[in-house]
């Protein structure tokens, strides 16, 4: 049910991808996602899929985990495909009344759906191989230059890591509440969408209350351990780029520049 949600989860491992510096991976994440939207031919999409497949293999994360992250957005994909296929004008493939399916629309919809799949796969690959601690460390270090401009990088990174940390907790809590409601005869799985949504509303009260309570406790625990906003903090795991990181950065940057180059030639 809810626990099938794999987006944003970290899977422990020792693969090459796990060992890369989070900043390197953030850069690659950006490059790959931008590339999948810049490439417009099926050849280009094929090439980037091949790169992604190689990376997925390298990550040593089981295929079913990757698949499960697509499973969640399945309805979005279908909707994207249909909306495009029926709304973009072009050669008519077939039509039902005012609804006209066009070849151009079908192509565009398919391309967009594949791109969404790629983005999801890239992002989940990133989160599978990057522990939340490393991720927030990476973000913090990337935001450091903006500190002078008054951007609280460390606090932002902390907020992000706390948010990530509590996703599974809240999912678990939601599941517990669902069970409690079902145990008391709550009918949450039948009826139309509206009816189901209405039967879920009572669950929101305890869910929010629980979150607020937890936030309170967390703040207290952090203060008890001497946390201060704006305080200088050292890190147990110092991030340092290895030679592998430099190679990856160099390679990805060159490919990206080349890609931009081809667009202007």
């Amino acid at each position: 049910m809810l626990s099938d949600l794999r987006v944003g989860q970290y899977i422990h491992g020792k693969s090459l991808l796990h060992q890369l510096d989070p900043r390197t991976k953030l850069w690659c994440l950006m490059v790959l996602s931008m590339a999948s939207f810049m490439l417009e031919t099926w050849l280009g999409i094929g090439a980037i899929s091949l790169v992604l497949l190689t990376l997925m293999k390298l990550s040593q994360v089981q295929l079913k985990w990757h698949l499960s992250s697509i499973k969640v957005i399945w309805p979005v994909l279908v909707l994207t495909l249909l909306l495009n296929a029926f709304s973009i004008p072009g050669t008519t493939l077939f039509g039902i009344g005012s609804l006209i399916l066009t070849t151009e629309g079908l192509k565009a919809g398919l391309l967009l759906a594949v791109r969404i799949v790629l983005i999801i796969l890239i992002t989940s690959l990133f989160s599978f191989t990057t522990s939340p601690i490393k991720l927030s460390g990476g973000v913090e270090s990337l935001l450091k230059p903006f500190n002078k401009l008054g951007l609280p990088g460390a606090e932002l990174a902390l907020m992000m890591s706390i948010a990530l940390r509590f996703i599974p907790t809240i999912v678990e809590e939601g599941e517990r509440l669902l069970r409690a409601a079902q145990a008391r005869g709550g009918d949450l799985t039948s009826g139309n969408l509206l009816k189901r949504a209405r039967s879920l509303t009572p669950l929101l009260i305890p869910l929010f209350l629980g979150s607020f309570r937890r936030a309170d406790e967390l703040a207290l625990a952090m203060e008890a351990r001497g946390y201060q906003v704006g305080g200088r903090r050292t890190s147990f795991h110092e991030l340092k780029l290895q030679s592998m990181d430099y190679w990856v950065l160099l390679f990805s940057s060159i490919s990206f520049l080349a890609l931009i180059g081809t667009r202007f030639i």
Partner: protein
Amino acid sequence: MEFRDVHYTYLQTGPEVKVLKDINLSIFSGDFLSLIGSSGAGKSTLLLHLNGLLKPTQGKVLYKGTDVHTKDFKLKELRRKVGMLFQYPENNFFGQTVYEDVSYAPKNSGKQGKDLERAVGLALERVGVPKNYLSRSPFGLSGGEKRRVALAGVLAMDPELLVLDEPTAGLDPTHRQQFILLMQELHKQGTTVVMVSHEMDQVSEIGGRTVVLEQGRIVAQGTTRQVMTECDLCNWGLDLPEIVKLGRSLSLVYRGGPVLTEAEALEGILQQRGGKGAK
């Protein structure tokens, strides 16, 4: 009414953790069954099978002889008959007022108007919460009151079988005692009770039957007297009730066997003294 022949095998969650293995267990009408075991032994998982919230990966859960996971079986009916109080139930309040929360279950079973009001009133009366609490927010009550309101929310369904997961965890000794007395009272009125507990003293005072779960297996079951006095609970990371320990070290005897409750220990001590005095 009878709840009979509950039988489960194997449960796999997530990355294939076998939480329950070869569970064979019967719960009879009128039982007071205590489920004990160290943390992570699978007690709560076992409970979730009792009203069909979890489906066994192997084996069957039977209610009065019918498998509860067959198509014709109405799980909703079962859930109406099996009242379940979860761990820390005060985190699961659904209503903004006590009335709203307690009426959640009977409303779901189709009660309306006067019937609904009567069910809520009766449930609150059974747990000893005064009527003027009806319009208060359940979140603003004290710990002991919250727990009782939560129990009322379950009792409002008028369940045949009451399932309690560590019902007294986090309560102070007075409230704990009150809660146990309340459950014994409900049991006397004919409700079958299944309870998970970490407090051996509680279990021994209650009596009834006891099942010991260890790493997903039932390692011992029988009357509480048998389990507490004949088995070596220390092997399973559990402690003996204080009274049983006392009884052992003083070699107290009650009706020819080891003592289990405070009252029996008292009797044993008097007997021992009396015996010596006579000699």
